[in-house]
């Protein structure tokens, strides 16, 4: 029996492989073995004659026969040979089938070949690799020539477009979740099909056969060729073993094979990562190398061959960066060397304009990575451009992806190198760590656009950076949150974040799993525990950031990590902690103790100095501050009485600067405060306003500087003087604000599309207060105008929260009317609402 012979030969091949024969040599040996066998069969078949030739196609045609690959055969024949074909095909195919091989076969005349190739692009590319095996040489040659004459020559553009379209479709099909965890070595992005696609196009369009020829033709650089060849060799070995291990034609790295494969390739566990994770990391990196190289290749060829794009006008966006035919270009190598942050500016422009970066400029970025040195990593301009990408890019994921592919991201944040293409060996984490991080940034962006209870973060750039870095500590032997938080602190400092921002960043990275884990594992009705959580989280701002980060992280992890079910638990714990934190932004008083207990504490603290009129302190006020602060306020009241001057005490707390202002209550007090702060370049972020029964107002405001100035640079004394003038009605705030912001207000600017302002008056949400929400497009002095309008209506503001959501600000006021009741009359509600809308719609500015 013949098939026994073939089987024996293939067993012998597997034996050779076990002895160490692998890579290309194994493929060639295998092809040779099948060649010899088929040629023997053909030549020994009495019916085979000079009107036929046996042709190898596809991978077999290229002599790249993997252990269980299909053997693609074509029996080419002249029309006259029709009758003899039956016995010949039987003689050729039966033994192959008996040996258990998968055979793809066709029996065609030259005319049929050409017709089929026109219909079927896959057959067309299979013919590109046609290789003569046996029978008539002239017949084979005429087919070969006819094929190139009729299908390739003059159809180069069509061939290229077909190839690119199939490539894109394949990437989509094999880009789904299941193929992330278990990559398909042949069809996935960066797999063998991408290698072949590049080789086919080079062959068909330019007559280039080998990788070396492609390099010599200048289509890829020597460095690219080197990495590409290395990646290909690695993947060949992987695929050989995968076939032998599976015992069939399997090209997908199924989860259950990964560990065994890793062991076979001698990857052993280290302290930081499992061997299998390092192994998969190498596979992903090699796939990425091929994906990047072939991407650049196809763009290059498409541009060379394709029709010129519309819009040939060249537009300079900034020195060194231009738009040409809808692609961004780096134009000035000398300028890049002089101002290397231009490399990052390129990505900022890509994010802003939504345009792609031209392939040549992507290569320029890679070629200039040596400029990214320690100094540039500390550069303010570089950091500014980088944050610009994180915060403002239209499609932040693809911009960061290209940044990662070019190598700029890891050059700028070397901490990223460790986790590049790092896989986690479980079925939960579908993406490699680096891709997961980019995805988290993108998910975060989607969240901040959609409405959640915790939308509106004061430092979106810190949150975005935390999203990008939250898993940066993976792959070390320590706890990844802890390690990540240390790395993040270093990065934050290097990127020029303030101390408070860096602390916040490091906190977010350290605690990024806190809410998700706690929501699932702890009793959400355990008040003592919730209080502990609140103490750890410290402020509503941090809670909001953690909440958003937790959701974005889960959504970016994989299809099973985020469910509505988990979302409900996460929302529940977050709201409960939020309610606790809202009572006081920094230190949490023990609410179970109540106001009486607070008074006792204060009395004890003050001792002899304790005043007699404790009754003047409202309960809500007492529950909002720790005893030490209440005592402090009482002491300050003495100053207030003696000096007849408002007291101002700024402090540099974690995320904001806080300003305590104590003054005699008067109509429009908050408006005057807001106006004076704006005049001194401070934006109010939130405010708590209390009035004691003796008419002392205690206002606690969190503020943030409008310009880049430090706490020490802020002139607090001048601010105090101006505030006191304003309170005595000796300072014309309105005209001064107009003066100060004249330029800002007049700038015609291309305003983004702005949402219409609206005002919501709500009597239901709070038991005690009427809540007024003003949604408006931000402008300097807006808060001053709004608070002054409320003062005109004699509405007292007890609490305010000012947050911005992109260009829109959302100002929320907890108010009571002059009789200390809610605003109940619908007509009055309507009047207030109209007046506020007028202010909100007025882009013009501080009027009268």
């Amino acid at each position, binding site marked *: 029996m013949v098939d026994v012979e073939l089987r024996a030969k293939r067993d012998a091949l597997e034996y050779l492989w076990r002895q160490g024969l692998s890579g290309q040599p194994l493929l060639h040996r295998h092809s040779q073995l099948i060649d010899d066998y088929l040629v023997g069969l053909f030549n020994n078949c009495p019916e085979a004659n000079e009107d036929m030739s046996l042709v190898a196609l596809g991978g077999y045609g290229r002599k790249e026969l993997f252990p269980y690959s299909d053997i693609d055969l074509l029996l080419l024949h002249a029309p006259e040979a029709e009758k003899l074909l039956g016995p010949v095909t039987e003689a050729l195919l039966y033994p192959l089938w008996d040996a258990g091989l998968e055979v793809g076969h066709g029996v065609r005349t030259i005319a049929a070949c050409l017709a089929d190739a026109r219909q079927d692009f896959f057959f067309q590319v299979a013919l590109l690799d046609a290789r003569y095996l046996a029978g008539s040489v002239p017949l084979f040659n005429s087919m070969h020539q006819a094929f190139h004459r009729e299908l390739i020559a003059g159809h180069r553009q069509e061939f290229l477009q077909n190839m690119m379209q199939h490539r894109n479709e394949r990437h989509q099909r094999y880009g789904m979740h299941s193929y992330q965890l278990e990559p398909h070595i042949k069809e996935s992005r960066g797999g063998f099909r991408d290698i072949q696609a590049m080789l086919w196009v080079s062959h068909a369009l330019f007559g280039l056969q080998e990788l070396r020829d492609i390099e010599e033709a200048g289509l890829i650089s020597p460095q690219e060729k080197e990495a590409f060849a290395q990646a290909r060799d690695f993947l060949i070995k992987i695929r050989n073993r995968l076939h032998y291990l599976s015992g069939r034609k399997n090209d997908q790295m199924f989860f259950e094979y990964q560990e065994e494969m890793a062991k076979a390739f001698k990857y052993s566990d280290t302290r930081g990562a499992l061997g299998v994770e390092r192994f998969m990391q190498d596979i992903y990196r090699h796939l990425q190398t091929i994906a990047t190289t072939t991407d650049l290749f196809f763009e290059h060829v498409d541009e060379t061959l394709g029709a010129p794009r519309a819009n040939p006008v060249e537009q300079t966006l900034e020195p060194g960066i231009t738009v040409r035919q809808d692609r961004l270009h780096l134009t000035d190598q000398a300028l890049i060397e002089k101002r290397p942050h231009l490399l990052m500016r390129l990505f900022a422009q890509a994010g802003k304009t939504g345009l792609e970066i031209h392939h040549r400029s992507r290569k320029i970025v890679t070629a200039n990575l040596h400029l990214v040195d320690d100094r540039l990593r500390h550069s303010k301009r570089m950091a500014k451009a980088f944050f610009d990408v994180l915060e403002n890019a239209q499609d932040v994921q693809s911009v960061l992806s290209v940044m990662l592919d070019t190598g700029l991201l890891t050059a700028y944040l070397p901490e990223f190198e460790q986790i590049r293409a790092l896989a986690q060996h479980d079925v939960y984490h579908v993406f490699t760590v680096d891709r997961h991080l980019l995805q988290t940034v993108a998910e975060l962006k989607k969240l901040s656009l959609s409405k959640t209870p915790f939308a509106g973060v004061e430092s979106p750039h810190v949150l975005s950076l935390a999203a990008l870095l939250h898993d940066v500590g993976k792959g070390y032997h320590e706890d990844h949150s802890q390690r990540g938080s240390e790395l993040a602190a270093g990065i934050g400092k290097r990127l020029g974040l303030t101390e408070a921002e860096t602390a916040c960043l490091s906190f977010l990275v350290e605690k990024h799993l806190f809410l998700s884990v706690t929501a699932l594992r702890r009793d959400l009705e355990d008040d003592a525990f919730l209080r502990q959580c609140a103490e750890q989280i410290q402020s509503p701002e941090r809670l909001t950031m953690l909440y958003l980060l937790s959701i974005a992280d889960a959504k970016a992890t994989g299809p099973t990590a985020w469910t509505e079910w*988990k979302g409900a638990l996460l929302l529940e714990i977050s709201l409960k902690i939020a309610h606790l934190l809202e009572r006081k932004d920094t230190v949490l008083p023990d609410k179970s103790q109540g106001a009486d207990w607070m008074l006792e504490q204060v009395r004890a603290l003050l001792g002899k100095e304790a005043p007699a009129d404790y009754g003047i302190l409202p309960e809500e006020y007492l529950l909002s501050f720790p005893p030490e602060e209440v005592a402090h306020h009482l002491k300050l009241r003495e100053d207030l009485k003696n000096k007849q001057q408002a007291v101002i005490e700024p402090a540099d707390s974690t995320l904001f600067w806080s300003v305590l202002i104590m003054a005699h209550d008067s109509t429009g007090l908050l408006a005057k405060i807001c106006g004076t702060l704006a005049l001194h370049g401070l934006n109010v972020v939130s405010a708590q306003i209390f009035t004691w029964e003796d008419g002392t107002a205690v206002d606690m405001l969190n503020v943030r500087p409008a310009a880049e100035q430090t706490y020490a640079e802020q002139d607090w004394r001048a601010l105090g003087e101006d505030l006191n003038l304003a309170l005595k009605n000796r300072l014309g705030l309105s005209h001064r604000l107009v003066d100060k912001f004249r330029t800002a207000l007049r700038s015609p600017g291309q305003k983004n599309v702005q949402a219409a302002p609206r005002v919501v008056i709500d009597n239901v949400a709070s038991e005690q207060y009427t809540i007024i929400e003003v949604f408006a497009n931000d402008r300097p002095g807006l808060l001053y105008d709004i608070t002054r309008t409320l003062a005109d209506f004699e509405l007292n503001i007890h609490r305010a929260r000012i947050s911005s959501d992109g260009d829109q600000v959302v100002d929320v006021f907890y108010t009571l009317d002059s009789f200390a009741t809610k605003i109940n009359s619908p007509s009055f509600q309507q009047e207030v609402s109209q007046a506020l809308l007028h202010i909100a719609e007025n882009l013009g500015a501080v009027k009268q």
Partner: protein
Amino acid sequence: MKKIEAIIKPFKLDEVKEALNEMGIKGMTISEVKGYGRQKGHKEIYRGAEYIVDFIPKVKIEIIVDAGMVDAVVTKIRETANTGKIGDGKIFVLPVDEVIRVRTGETGKEAI
């Protein structure tokens, strides 16, 4: 043979799993479920906006045991999952006609 279905609070899962393991019960099916009951969904108000949580997340454990074990298992789950507050969950006991292990074809007690 009986099937025991227990609906419990999510954070009690680890404890219950451990307690059952100690009793020698190694296999169970666990799913995330949503429910309504006496612990109704609720409305949360935060910063002036309303958020309605219209279902309560729970965990469902399913175990098949020999009839003789039922009381002990039910008691153990009840003790472990109890917090004394509303929403602790419910336990159902259902009859099971037959159990077949797919791999071997074993049936009855052997297949549990």
